């Protein structure tokens, strides 16, 4: 029987080296052995993803590697998440996420979604090529605190501005997060957004930081 530390290492290593089967097996083993699922997620899967972020930042990993790491992480998350007790997994917050109409690229969007999934948010994924009004309708329906939109092309970026206006008109307290290759901090400011990630890679870095902050938060809760 593997110790808790060994299982955490298997999860972390499996995410870093995109060994999906290893992650799934270690996740199942952790559940069978009665280890805390949330601890496995945070100190195993999420810890591995933080290392992936470092490797990306140092240009040792590129988007293909990060995508494979994300597959491994999701393999473990699917097994572990249902075993997180309700009191531990109380939803942190809700986010509506999607790629804007006219844009069928969703790599960046899916990486950001992963970040929210790991962090325990309730994610309403509208997919890609999402009509502008749909973001507004879904935010109103779910009362989500955050709306995250991505556009990979200049040609679709302008739709974001309309969505932000429509949402802020109805509910000024909603935080809007923008992402995608053509989006710059200036554009985000101009459109009235509250935050932005400039590319899939930047989304990874932002996501890793967020996961890191969440891990610190979980540790403080334990003390």
């Amino acid at each position: 029987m593997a110790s808790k530390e060994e299982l955490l290492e298997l999860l972390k290593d499996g995410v870093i080296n995109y060994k999906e089967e290893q992650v799934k097996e270690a996740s199942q083993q952790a559940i069978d052995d009665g280890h805390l699922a949330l601890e496995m997620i945070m100190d195993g899967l999420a810890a591995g993803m933080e290392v992936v972020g470092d490797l990306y930042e140092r240009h040792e990993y590129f988007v293909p590697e990060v995508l494979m790491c994300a597959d491994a992480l999701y393999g473990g998350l699917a097994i572990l998440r249902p075993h997180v007790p309700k009191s531990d997994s109380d939803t942190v917050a809700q986010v509506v996420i999607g790629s804007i109409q006219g844009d069928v690229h969703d790599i960046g969007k899916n990486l950001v979604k992963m970040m929210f999934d790991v962090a325990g948010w309730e994610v309403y994924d509208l997919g890609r090529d999402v009509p502008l009004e749909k973001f507004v309708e879904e935010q109103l329906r779910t009362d989500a605190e955050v709306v995250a939109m991505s556009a990979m092309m200049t040609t679709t970026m302008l739709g974001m501005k309309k969505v932000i206006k429509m949402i802020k008109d109805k509910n000024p307290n909603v935080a809007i997060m923008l992402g995608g290759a053509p989006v710059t901090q200036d554009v985000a400011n101009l459109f009235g957004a509250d935050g932005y990630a400039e590319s899939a890679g930047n989304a990874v870095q932002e996501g890793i930081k967020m996961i890191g902050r969440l891990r610190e938060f979980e540790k403080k809760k334990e003390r």
Partner: protein
Amino acid sequence: MVLLPAIKKLGYNFPSVHRNAERMAHSAIESARMFNLDSVVVPFDMCWESEALGNEISLYEDSEDILYPTIPYKNWTEVDQVEISQDDIDNIMDKYPMNLLPEAVAIVKKEAPDLALGVWQLGPFTQCGQTIELDKVLKAVFKDTARVEDILDKLSDMIINIGKALQAAGADFITLREPGVAADLLSPKTFRELIQPRLTRIMSAWKSPKVLHICGSTDPLVEMMWQIVTDSGGQAVSFDIKNNLLESRKKLGDDAIILGNFDVFGLPCAEETTVEQAIEGIKTNIDGKVDAVWPGCDLWPDIKEANFRAMEKTAREYHGGFKFKTDG
């Protein structure tokens, strides 16, 4: 390249100019004429080949916004499902909508013989991402390299044939655009091993003049891009706004022909950009030692006319004058 004031003048709506050879040709010519540009470039969207291979496209005919055609769902969902036949490769120009392209080229050639006529093709990796989901392709680069190489080779053959057909129809220059391999997506090592040989083969098969363009992060690829151009008998490289132009000039030397790099949204379109700022943007581009003023990526069609006219004028007059061209 298509500009909104031009198609408004012609009485066309945006979705109607993409799959009608006559409207596409006239929109492109009017865009160039209206703003005194030196070249006409067709087509406008990136879905042609994928549509010819059997995917349905969305033209967004009901949208009031300017939305370029996309492929909402692709028939092949996994890399191992991709099947590009010899018939696809050999007879791609007979399949709809590819059969419209030579027609559009011929119309432009006939009606605007004074303007340089440009065409373009996506590179095989980006084209692969138009036929199956890009994330699947990116992962398969590692998980199923042989399969990806086989697909890229077949697509390269197809792209060569399309380029030759468009040149035969009357195109004066051709640009190979491969935005899906930028250094923020693929590593330079993967570019060198997987992409460079295929881009070289494609460009070698085409007549000159020919240009290689890559959007996104290209600083680590600059030398390899130029090597592709020189190895294939090409003429120029083109970068988008993310490239450090001065550094690229240092790396490639004064003999290399470098195009692109100006902000295609910020300068001509952004609401808050003044005419003076648009002019400064073009001056900065020229001071960055480009050999001609050429957009860093697709121009957003909804330009502010005053900004765009000032940009064109600056390109012609600053430091004795540059040609003002378009690549998308």
